[in-house]
């Protein structure tokens, strides 16, 4: 049985994750063909409901949906009136009346996509909710890592930065751990909650974190636009203490470590310019892989019906969805 919604990584079973990653591989092969479109979601409608600004996630979902031949509608969210929950509820009623098949939602309030999912028969995909989850980002991160490490068990990923506000850190760390990858955090004391799961070691200085011998260094975006409260003294100091400086890049290069970043990058803050040209930077791979992962997710979910949450999964793709390879 398939799922109606993708709201989080926490409730995904390992079999579901591996199925989605396998499907993503198939979809990615499609990109090399002259016709990149398949009719898997022909006649279906995908509604993009982005209450927060987004460029890459939004366009990635849009491209993914179009390559599956779905119709994509961008819901015109009035930023001036969306802060109140009642507006969201009215929107949900409207969407339900429209009988859309998929809703891709991003909102600054944690848990809001789940609330929408409970009130609509459409498949809801969480494209980022507050500091809660960003499941497709986690899937594309895992997919990108698996491209480099086909059997990633025992590999180590060091996530550096603002864990407190990061849905990426939560989703990606959860998913990587489900795949047997070790995860550790490094960041300022004001931005790494002391209640992170015990399974995630927390380093307080860069050298100690590197001594842990990570295979991948995953830099989180410093969300300067959200820093209405001062969590660290200056971006200069942040870069010096937690950023990939030129000196650190040399060390990373020597060790052959991969660098990842969910984007968009603050150059000179999380990383120095040279990282963008570093041969083991996977940042553009992540963007590219986002499309195939999101195609796999859209193709996998089954809108409609009254699906209980966190349904047990039988790893059988729907008819017609696996025959994408020539």
């Amino acid at each position, binding site marked *: 049985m398939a799922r109606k919604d993708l709201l989080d990584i926490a409730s995904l079973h390992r079999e579901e994750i591996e199925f989605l990653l396998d499907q993503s591989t198939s979809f990615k092969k499609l990109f090399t063909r002259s016709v990149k479109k398949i009719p898997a979601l022909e006649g279906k409608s995908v509604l993009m409901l982005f209450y927060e600004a987004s460029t890459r996630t939004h366009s990635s979902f849009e491209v993914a949906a179009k390559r599956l031949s779905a119709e994509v509608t961008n819901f015109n969210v009035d930023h001036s009136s969306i802060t109140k929950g009642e507006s969201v*509820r009215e929107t949900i009623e409207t969407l339900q009346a429209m009988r859309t098949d998929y809703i891709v939602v991003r909102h600054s309030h944690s*848990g809001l996509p789940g609330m929408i999912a409970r009130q609509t028969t459409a498949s809801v995909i969480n494209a980022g909710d507050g500091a809660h989850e960003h499941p497709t980002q986690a899937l594309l991160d895992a997919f990108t890592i698996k491209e480099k490490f086909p059997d990633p068990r025992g590999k180590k990923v060091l996530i550096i930065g603002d864990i*407190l506000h990061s849905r990426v850190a939560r989703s990606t760390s959860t998913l990587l751990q489900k795949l047997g990858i070790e995860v550790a955090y490094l960041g300022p004391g004001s931005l790494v909650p002391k*209640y992170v799961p015990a399974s995630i070691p927390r380093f307080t200085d860069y050298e100690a974190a590197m001594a842990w011998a990570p295979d991948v260094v995953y830099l989180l975006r410093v969300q300067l636009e959200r820093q209405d409260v001062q969590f660290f003294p200056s971006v200069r100091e942040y870069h010096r203490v937690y950023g990939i400086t030129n000196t650190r890049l040399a060390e990373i290069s020597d060790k052959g470590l991969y660098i990842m970043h969910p984007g968009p990058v603050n150059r000179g803050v999380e990383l120095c310019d040279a990282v963008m040209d570093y041969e083991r930077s996977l940042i553009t791979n992540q963007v590219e892989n986002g499309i195939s992962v999101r195609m796999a997710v859209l193709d996998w979910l089954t809108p409609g019906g009254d699906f209980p949450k966190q349904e047990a999964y039988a790893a059988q793709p729907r008819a017609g969805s696996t025959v994408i390879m020539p």
Partner: protein
Amino acid sequence: MLLLQNARIASENSPVLLESDVLIVEGKIQAIGSNLAIPEGARVIDARGRILMPGMFDAHVHFRAPGFENKETITTGSEAAINGGITGVVMMPNTRPALDSATAVATVLENARDRARIPVYTSGCVTKNREGKELAEIEGMRELGVKMLTDDGDTTADPAVLLRAMQYATEFGMFFASHCEVPELAGPRALNEGVMSYRLGIKGSPACAEEIIIDRDIRLARAAGAHVHIQHVSSKLGMETIRWWKSRGDVKVTAEVAPHHLLFTDEHIGDYDTNYKMNPPLRTQADCDALLEGLKEGVLDLIATDHAPHTPFEKAQDFISAPNGITGLDTALVSLYHHFVAPGKFGWDLVVKRYSAEPRRLMGLPVAAIEVGQPADCVLFDTDAETTFTKDFMKSKSQNTPFIDQTLKGSVDLVVLGTEVLLER
């Protein structure tokens, strides 16, 4: 005339339930004894096996009137109290307009006399419009019977303002009830900072946000020679702070705990269930355990629900948008029985002491008791029956409670106040 036969009488002074008949005549308990003769014209109720206790008294309720009558009114709120075996309440003054003047208080008390079947008392604001700047008209409210001053819903942020209010109002025999929270630390979300706040991706409110003000306000009360009552204690260290101050004996401190802080943890929030969103937030099992110990020891003097109704529409929003608070009056006594008395964690004597006697003492009211000569103010409770908290069962105008549709052991069968039978099931 009402004769209750073979009731098991609970009192704050003894864990032993005394089985006896109780005769109520003209609103007073006229006789207690075995096999009392049935007076002519008396109504006889077979109370065998059921517990007879004084009516509960809730020193912390929000009846939302004036200003928010879509959530609750004095009538619906007091009916919810009766439904739960509670025969007296103290309203909080965070209404609109706020109860910060004799005029506002007089209006509320007049409404209460007309519209409630139980005594409804009110507290008054410490500062005008609860803004924490100018002192409210304290003495004018005292003349109308207000004893408790609080800016509940918020801490009186400026300690100098609170200290002055304490110095001034203590002269009039008034005391202060403190909602303890540093807003800059607590943040707006009403979720304990911990494993759950990390998992749900919501900025948590650390317990120290509460503990700092508990300590601050007791220090201020000590400096002013005032009596401070700490409201809805939710944290272990907060309770221990109160214990330490009480052990010194040089400041008058009382404190209350809400049933939900004894019963639920942040883990109950689960998938963003707004019925568990309240302020102070639900904390951890260690906090619950410590609060239970504090209640038994008397560090926490009384139980109060912080009955906080909100409309279904408001609570049906996402967790972050939904307002803080849950209702408590319909459910308090049954839930205390089900979760604590029935499993033997404490006895009926503690319930009577902490939820009937101590809150009345706090308010300077006569303590209700099942004793000869006392006014009839009693509740008959069936420990064998069950209560299902359906929407129809609830008398509160709002049903924002985790207990909705739950079935718990115990039932409030009868509520008698003076000459009136307020409730009979």
